[in-house]
């Protein structure tokens, strides 16, 4: 690294997208690039974009796998709109991703893959590298395949094997362009290929070959970029995806409450990783049942909850539909349980790997009878940890089912996470009944929260029976008494409503009053913040109220709404939260903005919409 650079340009933030065939190792390339960004002290957020098929036909557009990272010196809230740099390993990834590249952005391609056969597979009639269609971009044509082979020719490995590491050549180029250190990638090779020193050596060589290639190419070496460390607060950090953060938040709630974790769950995209992650952590006492179906997943959890575990089930929209009846059972038996719904595009099987916010009404209302539950929504990959913890705390302290909504975008995406200390998390005190408590009655309630108590089988003196039939108030005996039923329905609803007395009030980003309040929930937080910031920087009186507590809503919600002239509710559905708000706050007029393409919002479309509403008479 003795080469003299002509010019180093400092950037606030950059978006890089790696794209290849689903077997090209793009997720790994992106992860290693993220780690190097971490070492450099940048803030970042990432998003993997992979096909629903495990190995879709090679070379075709449907088989393209991508990984986007947005890193910066400033605080990063999303994985970015359009890419500054696209690395395309083949023609198909170029075809699929060109629309996501900024005009004037850089595109790095492996020229050797642009042959007739692969161009045809990708659906190109003409070679885009020569037909003039890329003149608006800075295209770097790199002979990645042959240089990769050349760098390892004396190692005695077969060339097919070597070409598998073509992605590391591309990574090397990016390391040069953004002045990255080799250390984190080298560490990875040494750990991963411990048993095979030759593979460690080849990967290191290929990475450096890419780096050196970039150094020798005028178009790349004349300007390189530096993104200064972000101004993150002091502490220990790690990278985390939303699914892992959710799993860990649940484990944290288990440890804090002293209740062993039980997860009953069935594999479903994009929630499976929670099931997999919790299966690993048996050393923390977590018991996991991979159930025979979604119904058994939740029902076994209800059984576990009855037996005294902190019980959880994880799923996605179609699975939540199947769990519907059992959630009603948990409502009736007033047992704590957390249901994690990692939303995906529906209805039915829909688009399993694409994200959407369309399970909100199902979470709120999708049950027979009057069956209120607490509904929370995480808003970023890292705060899945805190809302999973909060879901556990509310479920156990208020003796109620809690549905935690996340979605594929934050579940699979990752971001920088400041590692909390368990000692700093709030206490969780479940209302567990002591042995031989003479006052205990199954449906006797705490006068403030209205929760019943948790009497755990195996405890002397508390034998009792519960079930799905209506309960007589206090005694819990089966009752078909008309007035008792009304009373019990009201008590169950009021219990959930009173959770609002135990949560943080709703906060606003921006001035307390103004011309426009943007009201959002869930994974759109990052893009809302960026859009609202942009409006504020332009002098507009716009603020953001982003909701994490959906049911019950924070007590100060109405008061906040009253301080703004206009309110808009953008959502990745056809208007579910806005319907709920209209139902609850009939005196306000709510504008809505909806997108349902399996894609996140982009900052620019939101800014345009907000301006349009501000200008409307």
């Amino acid at each position, binding site marked *: 690294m003795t080469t003299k650079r002509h010019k180093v340009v400092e950037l606030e933030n950059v978006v890089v997208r790696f794209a290849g065939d689903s077997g090209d190792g793009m997720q790994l390339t992106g992860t290693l690039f993220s780690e190097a960004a*971490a*070492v450099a*002290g940048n803030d970042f957020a990432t998003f993997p974009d992979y096909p629903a098929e495990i190995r879709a036909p090679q070379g075709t557009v449907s088989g393209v796998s991508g990984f986007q990272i947005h890193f910066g010196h400033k605080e990063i809230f999303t994985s970015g709109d359009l890419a500054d740099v696209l690395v395309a390993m083949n023609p198909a990834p170029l075809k699929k991703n060109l629309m996501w590249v900024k005009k004037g952005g850089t595109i790095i391609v492996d020229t050797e893959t642009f042959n007739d056969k692969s161009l045809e597979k990708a659906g190109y009639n003409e070679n885009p590298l020569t037909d003039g269609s890329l003149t608006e971009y800075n295209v770097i044509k790199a002979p990645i395949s042959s240089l990769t082979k050349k760098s390892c020719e004396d190692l005695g490995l077969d060339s097919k094997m070597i070409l598998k590491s073509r992605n590391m050549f591309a990574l090397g180029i990016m390391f040069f362009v953004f002045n990255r250190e080799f250390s984190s990638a080298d560490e990875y090779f040494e750990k991963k290929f411990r048993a095979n020193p030759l593979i460690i050596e080849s990967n290191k060589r290929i990475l450096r070959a890419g780096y050196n290639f970039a150094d020798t190419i005028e178009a790349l070496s004349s300007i390189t970029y530096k993104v200064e*460390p972000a101004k*993150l607060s*002091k*502490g*220990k*950090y*790690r*990278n985390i995806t939303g699914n892992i953060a959710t799993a*860990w938040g649940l*484990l*944290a709630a288990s*440890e804090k409450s002293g209740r062993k974790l*039980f997860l*009953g769950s069935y594999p479903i995209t994009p929630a499976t990783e929670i099931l997999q992650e919790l299966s690993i*952590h*048996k*050393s*923390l*006492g977590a*018991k996991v*049942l991979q159930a*025979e179906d979604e*119904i*058994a997943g939740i*029902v*076994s959890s*209800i*059984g*576990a*909850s*009855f*037996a*005294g*575990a902190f*019980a959880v089930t994880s799923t996605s929209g179609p699975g939540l539909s199947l769990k519907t*009846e*059992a959630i*009603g*059972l948990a409502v009736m038996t007033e047992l704590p349980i957390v249901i994690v719904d990692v939303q995906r595009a529906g209805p039915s099987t829909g688009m399993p790997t694409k994200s959407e916010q369309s399970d909100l009404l199902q979470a709120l209302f999708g049950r027979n009878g009057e069956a209120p539950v607490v509904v929370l929504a995480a808003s970023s990959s890292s705060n899945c940890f805190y809302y999973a913890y909060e879901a556990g705390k509310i479920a156990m302290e208020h003796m109620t089912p809690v549905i935690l909504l996340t979605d594929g975008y934050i579940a699979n995406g990752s971001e920088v996470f400041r*590692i*909390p*200390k*368990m000692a700093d998390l709030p206490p969780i005190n479940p209302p567990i009944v002591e042995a031989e408590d003479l006052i205990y009655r199954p449906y006797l309630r705490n006068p403030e929260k209205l929760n019943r108590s948790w009497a755990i*089988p*195996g*405890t*002397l*003196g*508390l*034998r*009792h*029976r*519960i*079930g*799905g*039939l209506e309960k007589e108030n206090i005694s819990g005996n*089966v009752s078909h008494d008309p007035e008792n039923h009304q009373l019990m329905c009201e008590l169950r609803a009021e219990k959930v409503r009173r959770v609002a007395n135990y949560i943080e009030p709703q906060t606003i980003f921006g001035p307390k009053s103004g011309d426009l309040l943007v009201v959002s929930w869930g994974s759109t937080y990052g893009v809302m913040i960026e859009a609202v910031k942009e409006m504020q920087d332009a002098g507009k009186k716009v603020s953001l109220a982003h909701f994490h507590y959906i049911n019950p809503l924070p007590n100060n919600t109405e008061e906040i709404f009253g301080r703004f002239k206009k309110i808009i509710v953008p959502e990745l559905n056809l208007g579910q939260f806005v319907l709920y708000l209209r139902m609850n706050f009939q005196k306000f007029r709510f504008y809505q903005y909806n997108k349902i393409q399996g894609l996140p919002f982009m900052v620019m479309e939101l800014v345009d919409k907000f301006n349009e509403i501000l200008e409307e008479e």
Partner: protein
Amino acid sequence: MADGFQEITTLTKEDFTSDQMVKWCPGCGDHAILSSFLKVLPELGVRKQDVVVVSGIGCSSRFPYYVKTYGFHGIHGRAAPLASGIKITNPDLHVWMITGDGDSLAIGGNHFIHLLRRNLDINVMLFNNKIYGLTKGQYSPTTPAGKKTKTSPQGTIEHPFNVGELAIGAQGTFFARTVDNNPKMMGEIMLEAGRHKGTSLIEILQNCVIFFNNVHADVASKETKDENQLFLRHGEPMIFGKENDKGIILRGTNLEVVKIGDHGITEKDLLVHDKYQRDPGIHVMLAKMAPPVFPIVLGVIRSVTDFTFESKMEQIIQYEIETSLIKTVDDLLNSGKTWEI
């Protein structure tokens, strides 16, 4: 634990009798089953606070309300996962699951086979009356082919399940069959099921006086039982009949009824019951025997040992606790790639 021991040894039927009014129809077989169960519980040698009775939906599933233990009346078909969650969470609990032919073989069929396959140490009593009682008389998965019911006015056109065949096919380690009018036999079998480590399934031939009265009359009535019941005892030859003069032999690959004394057949030629036989072949054949050719087989047909889900789970957890570097959630949060700012 001296107190606990004393407490167990002095328990009686009354310790498990609940104060709730029993609401089954007069003459329903469920009354006798409940009575036998209440007598067996004190004999099992478990603490009263450790017994949990779980059910799904149906007439049989009202059972937990009538037993003074921890109890959970679930939703239709889901008793098996409910019981599984309880047992996995606390393997020290003594879990009984009460279900019926509709609850476990129709809507809960999937859970039922997987419970057996996992071999959780749960005792299952399946009340088989071959009809839907609580919804007033529709056919069930065990209703005999051709039977006219409210939903099969021209006769059913479905092949019924044989409970034993299904359970053994799902790798059940314990299968027994009894009838609701023989309290002594029920008690004996419940006790053995309660002591078996693994999922114990008891099929109880139970009479629905309202919607399928005398459903089991061909094997369970005073007139028919001697000729049409064969009570199996481990290690003993398979003999039945009013005069104890009939037996079962294996000829080729088929079972056959023979008369002792005919054609020189003696007791020594008869099949001897081996409930511990791992190969399920003969057990399935016995479970499928039925009039008019054969007597029906009662008693413990199969009882083999294998590891239980929850004991393996506890072993793995113990091993992980001892060997993993991650002892707390703080350890977990700080594991892997981290950096300081």
